[in-house]
């Protein structure tokens, strides 16, 4: 069945880059799906600039990083995405809201993730998160 929406090459490229980012955040961090780690290139470097989460070095596996993240919180929800997509330079900077349940407190953080790509895979990312605000 053909798609009801006709996308030219540029928009297909944009959608593909955004899908990798959202797959990592939603399928990987929120749902714990190991397949989300497939969006990372070998040796990818992921840095949490606010020091909230463990760093993913070139020698660590994305799966290990996602496990460490999920061990730190019992509930995780990434939502309200807004993307800056640079298809030419293969970069995506995403703004999003993160909900976490830690120590029986539901916390909200405003975040940004700046992802670099090569051949459709994430080669590096810098994550920023606001100080957590308790909600609910």
């Amino acid at each position, binding site marked *: 069945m053909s798609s009801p929406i006709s996308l030219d090459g*540029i928009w297909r490229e*944009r959608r593909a880059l955004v899908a990798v980012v959202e797959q990592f955040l939603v399928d990987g961090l929120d749902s714990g799906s190991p397949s989300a780690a497939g969006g990372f290139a070998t040796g990818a470097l992921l*840095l949490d*600039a*606010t*020091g909230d989460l463990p760093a993913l070095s070139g020698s660590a596996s994305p799966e290990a990083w996602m496990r460490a993240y999920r061990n730190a919180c019992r509930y995780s929800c990434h939502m309200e995405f807004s*993307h*800056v*997509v*640079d298809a*030419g*330079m293969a*970069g*995506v*900077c995403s*703004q999003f809201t993160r909900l976490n349940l830690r120590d029986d407190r539901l916390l909200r953080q*405003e*975040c*940004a993730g*700046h992802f*670099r790509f090569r051949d459709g895979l994430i080669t590096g990312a*810098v994550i*920023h*998160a*606001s*100080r957590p*605000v308790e909600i609910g």
Partner: protein
Amino acid sequence: MRYESALDAVALEDLAIRRYFGAVDAKDIEGVLSCLHDEALFTVQTDFVCHAGKPAIRRMLVDYFAAFETIVHRDFKLSADPATGRVAATFEGLVTTAAGVATRLCNTNIWRVRGGRFQEIHVFMSGPNILV
């Protein structure tokens, strides 16, 4: 919010890096404000602070420029998105007081352009907020 913008990728980079950060590092308040609309919103997302409108942003800049002897932004990793009028950069910020106390930050800025100027600036800081 998405705005109408006709700036291409080169113009977005020029506005964000050469004009905006060039003026910040030169402590040129009028140069910084010339990049913004009168009702621009400047938010430090990591600290839930919002400076709304040029008078509030000017006040913040006056205090910021007075607090540091030198301000340097460098090593920009840029993503420009002409289709949505947005541009983002991750970079190193190095600010030094007159007493020689240096603070190094790894920040990300996201700018939203309306027409040819910034309507919104979203700042994500790796350390304590210095844009108060």
